[in-house]
């Protein structure tokens, strides 16, 4: 470990294989059946899953000798901030741009890597999914601060440091979908999921955003609302941005109980 230069030495394979096998779950379009293609890729130091996929795109021939169409996937920032490259790698949901081959092989003790699209979103093609449901959830819970107009409103109200810190943590969400993929209660439209709940918390904690607080709580008390959470806490374990998702859920549970369930006692 050389920590002197500020870099953390990554764990590396001591005797890496010549080649690695990559098993990819594929699909032509939304309606067609899923199938698997296996590719072989020469090992290099510092490979990540995206560079593996790029190699396959240049040489799309399977291990059983077929020339196939190159697999399709999404990518953009390549530094784990946009969330679009999320897929299920060796059974765990993560970003393919920050998933390092050495780490994967060390963990599985195997020279094969399996890639699948996320299972909880419409699978457009191969490893590409449609993440629209998450943006619909954000609309449903009013995940923005309302503005009266474009005139100068002056400086916004001050926030306590503690509120700022908690809000900062929620603001890091990149809508990647990991939390929804790992949530045993989430499956399409039966449950809005932890990602939207965290954004409710973010905007309800904002002094101006708070004005729409009840709209947001009400959205979370709908049929697909917060009461569907089963407390498995998988979401907080898999979130790559370290959002305190369970804190968001339980703080919101409290608000929903006090203002939603027992609000009539204050009438």
């Amino acid at each position, binding site marked *: 470990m050389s920590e002197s230069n500020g870099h953390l030495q990554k764990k590396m394979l001591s005797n890496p294989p010549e080649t690695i096998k990559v098993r990819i779950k594929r699909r032509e379009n939304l309606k067609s059946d899923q199938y698997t293609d296996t590719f072989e890729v020469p090992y290099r130091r510092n490979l990540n899953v995206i560079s593996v996929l790029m190699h396959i795109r240049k040489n799309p021939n399977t291990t059983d000798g077929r020339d196939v169409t190159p697999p399709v996937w999404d990518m953009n920032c390549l530094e784990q901030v946009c969330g679009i490259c999320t897929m299920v790698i060796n059974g765990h949901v993560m970003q393919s741009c920050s998933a390092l081959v050495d780490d994967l092989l060390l963990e599985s003790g195997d020279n094969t890597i399996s890639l699948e699209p996320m299972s909880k979103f419409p699978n457009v093609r191969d490893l590409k999914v449609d993440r629209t449901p998450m943006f619909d959830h954000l609309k449903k819970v009013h995940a923005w601060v309302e503005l009266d107009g474009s005139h100068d409103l002056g400086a916004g109200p001050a926030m306590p440091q503690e509120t700022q810190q908690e809000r900062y943590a929620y603001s890091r969400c990149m809508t990647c979908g990991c939390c929804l993929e790992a949530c045993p209660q989430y499956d399409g439209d039966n449950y809005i999921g932890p990602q939207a709940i965290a954004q409710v918390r973010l905007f309800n904690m904002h002094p101006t955003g708070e004005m729409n607080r009840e709209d947001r709580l009400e959205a979370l008390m709908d*049929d697909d609302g917060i009461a569907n959470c*089963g407390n*498995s806490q998988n979401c907080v374990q*898999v979130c790559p941005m370290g959002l305190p998702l369970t804190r968001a859920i339980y703080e919101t549970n*409290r608000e929903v109980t006090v203002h*939603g369930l027992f609000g009539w006692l204050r009438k």
Partner: protein
Amino acid sequence: MAIKFSRTFLLRKLHQITGIVPLGAFFFVHMFTNAKAMNGAKVFNDAVADIHHLPFLLLIEIFGIFLPLLYHSVYGIIISAEAKVNVVSYGFGRNWLYLFQRITGIFLFVFILFHLLHLRFGLFAGIGLTDIAVAGNASMAYEIIALDFQSVGIVIFYILGVGATAWHLGYGIFLFVVDWGIVVGEKAQKAALYASAFIAISLFGLGTNAIFSFIRPCGLMPSVLCEQTEKGKAVESEKF
């Protein structure tokens, strides 16, 4: 403050609260009553008779136990059916607890159904059990159960039943305090989890000792802990 809530929201909240009151509260009382068996047949039979003499017993039974139980168990099975279990990929501790809550719930459905139909309504005489229901026969309650417990299978089934209920209620108390926003923070949740485990273990101990009290006096406890009245002993020896 005109917040609307949906049907699912209300049904879920009702499911969560019925688990605590009346069902959870009833389970505490039930285990405590059963524990009286360690002090002998008479003490236990008197306790059963006391319950039979409660005012409005039928209403308490229907509205305090049967209906909440029916609702909680049927809706619980619906909730369990919705789960997309993924402990193989995501084997975190809480995820296993999530699964166990559903497994114990479904097991409890079978166990409680058997327990009620047999002891409340005297069914299942066919498999070598008595057809005398405890309900209405308070003076023979201890003897009826002692006879059932001559079968090792039944004893094991009951130990599993008590264990599953203690687990389900213990973790259920934790679930309730987080679902209603009573316990929010991570540290507080850890404390709540320990408290739940303590409650579950205590209830399991209490219930299991009660089971063995129908097999040997004072159950698994040393007899100094038990009040063996002369009368109690007499009834004991007259066991049929």
